[in-house]
């Protein structure tokens, strides 16, 4: 750890605001978000890009921040759950999650919301099959998934 590192200086847009950071090349995006910017809504779980708890949106597309290097965000837009929830278009999805009991422990929920948002951005009226396929990279161990599928459906209808 003491070896000289080539640090990466970068600017990017974080939850709609321009920010600057200096990172080591091997720093994953999740560490930058949680430790440097205090955005602890992004959760660490499997560390191998399977569970989706660390999902954030990079230029609107979901990525696993546990395995994406922080420098990949250079010059791009990063949206975390904190930025999403503060946004004006978040309410249909959030209310649908409440109405459908689509969260329990809440550990997968930030990633789940962002995955659902990016799905609905791409396909405002997804079929049940589309929802399942699109979101299969986000694991929930509490709900059994059915209520999340229902919530995404309801949010799609509410946004129409």
């Amino acid at each position: 750890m003491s070896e000289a590192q080539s640090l990466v200086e970068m600017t990017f847009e974080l939850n709609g605001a321009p920010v600057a950071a200096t990172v080591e090349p091997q720093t994953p995006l999740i560490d930058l978000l949680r430790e440097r910017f205090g955005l602890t809504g992004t959760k660490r779980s499997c560390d191998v890009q399977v569970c989706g708890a660390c999902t954030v949106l990079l230029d609107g597309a979901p990525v696993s921040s546990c395995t994406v290097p922080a420098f990949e965000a250079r010059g791009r837009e990063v949206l975390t759950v904190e930025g999403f929830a503060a946004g004006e278009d978040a309410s249909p999805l959030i209310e649908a999650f409440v109405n459908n009991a689509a969260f329990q422990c809440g550990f997968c929920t930030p990633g789940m919301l962002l995955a659902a948002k990016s799905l609905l951005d791409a396909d405002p009226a997804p079929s049940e099959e589309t929802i399942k396929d699109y979101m299969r990279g986000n694991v929930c161990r509490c709900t059994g998934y059915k209520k999340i599928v229902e919530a995404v459906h309801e949010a799609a209808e509410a946004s129409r």
Partner: protein
Amino acid sequence: MTTREFKTVGTQVRRLDADEKLSGRAQFTGDLEVPGMAFCKLVTSPLPHARITRLDASRARALPGVYAVLTAAELVNMETHYGSDKKDRPVVAIDKVRFQGEPVAAVAAVDLATAEAAVELVEVEYEELPTVTGIDEALDPAGEPVHESNVCHEYSIGWGDVDAAFRECDHVFEDTFEFPMVYHYAMEPHTCIASYEPDRIRLWTSAQHPFLVQAEIARLFGRQLDQVQVVVPFVGGGYGSKSYTKIEPLVTALSREAGRPVRLALSVDEAMRTVRRHAARGTIRTGVMNDGTIVARDCVGYVDTGGYTDNGVRVTERFGDRMPGPYAMPNLRVKTYGLFTNSTPAGSYRSIGGPQAIWVCESQIDMIAHALGMDPFEFRVKNLVREGEEVRRGRRPIEGDLEYALRRVADEFGWDGWTPEPTPPGVKRGIGFACGVTNSGASPTSTSLVRFHADGSATVYIGSAEMGQGSRSVMAQIAAEELRIPYEKVRVVASDTSAVPWDRSTGSSRSTTLMGLAVHDAAIDIRQQLLDLAAEHFEAFPEEIEAEDGRASFKGESVAFAALVRNLFGGSGGELMGRGYVTPKHPSGKLRQDPVFWEVSIGAAEVEVDTATGEVRLLRYYSISDPGKAINPKQVEGQDEGAAMQAIGHTLFEEMLYEDGQLLNPNLVDYRVPVFTDLPDEFETVLIESGNGPGPYGAKGVGEGGIVCVAPAVANAVFNATGVRISTLPLTPERVWRALHEAGQASG
């Protein structure tokens, strides 16, 4: 008195944690920062069974940025071992390691990178011992002992004369079934921050049983209970994995060495070496008459509890209690054993011993029905215990009508007259059924405190950990109902041992029933005080006062509760306190018998089997949930669906694989858990409210029942589709294909 209609009980209120959890603000243990906090990494054993011959941490201690290294040598001036029933787990390994991944040392450093570097500098030498893997090796008398013996615990129940009944009955069936080791995968791996200070110990930890952790830490470090504070923030999934005490003693001991707070956040790999579900084998002999009447059962079971006891004692017992099934049984003999092996210690996992027991029971019930030429559903119904009868001699009789529950599920599923839809060649469909009852509720001991504030709002204090089940909202609903105030006026403070009164634990489906009763009683305590104050105010008798919507009224006049409180204290402030004690002697008289309640589990499955590949697809699954009274119906469904989905994992693919004591799949790539696309096309919970539980409003627990019946229902459906019986889980394509192949049923 006229019956009052519920205002919040039975409605879907907005969860109290909704805004935090849907905004990223909800704090889990790993999100907390404690000033001066050091970071911990573990030095773990690469070997499953070995003597530690040398351990030298001096190079690690010399690394700049390292505060302390904890080894067995530092476990002085404290108790060295802990555990819920048997205190056989050392805080770090002493002299010997008993499973791969067991911590032998722990480093505290200024940051994680330094801690990781220091771990590499801890020198450990081992003398390898023969490895004990699985139940057969544990039973081998010539095998290496993991502890003094490889038998952790023995348990037996029984009555009648089983041998005589077997001699006299028409048929005796004997079959053996195997259940795999599985991992909870609570998405938040175990995390703990400990701060060992001269006058107190503080912990923030992902624990389901904060007061049991408090007692264990106090005992280990020779402190009074009031000197140990355990705070449990939001827990990122429990399912039993965070029951009792796990990493807290190690982190506390390391904090003592480091002289500062220390945080340990496990990885999934490390969590899989912290706790798992018991693998099990059950052999069951059942004596039946030609008309389908069961006259005797003889059950012998083994559970693999791994390197240490953890919750192995209770799991051994519950496996035995639950294996005979929900059937009238004139003669019964059950003997179960918990065995030590060189693998991750096994502890609680949602319905301890339940899925294993019902897998054995209900697979064989199906086989017997087939052998007798009876419909497996009607064979079950014929032998069920009836309402009010004892399921197990000397224990609480079954509450609720099991036959009604079974028929409800069968009707909604469409069991009678089911015919398979046409399928392509080589693809077969079938249906299967299973049922079980599990003795739940742990021990009936909880307390609660409610504070009623001078503005008419209230704060409820509970020990229950919030791990997804929604306990805070349910407690607020109960309090609001009994205080006669709106739900929105109630807040809940939970799971901080310095703030909330004692509770035994969060598990065994117990919180709504037992903590709910404590909150209910505490709220009624306050309501009675309010009625007394109102009686004084109106110069009436308390019985004449009506209380509703935050006001007390008498003969057309009313006064706000808030005003009554303020008047009592003669000013603008003040508050009332209410208490609820739940003990086996609770005045309701409903908690005297063990268990606290019987949790009902029923499953009906339709599967499709591809006989060319062995792939089993679960097309439809119907489960039941009987919460007695559904205080929050959607949360009840959510508990049941979540439990059933976890069971789909252990039914179709989940299994921790060991070879020579080495865990082969310690990550989520190789250990697959259910994902969205595993959701069956129909996935339904049939909600019935039998109203006869010992909790408030007749409530009883749910949350475990859904995990119990999936495996046998699916295996029974595979049999129905193919005529092939598979007695070992999980039903992987390879296992199913091999079984089909052996039976000459594989195609392609």
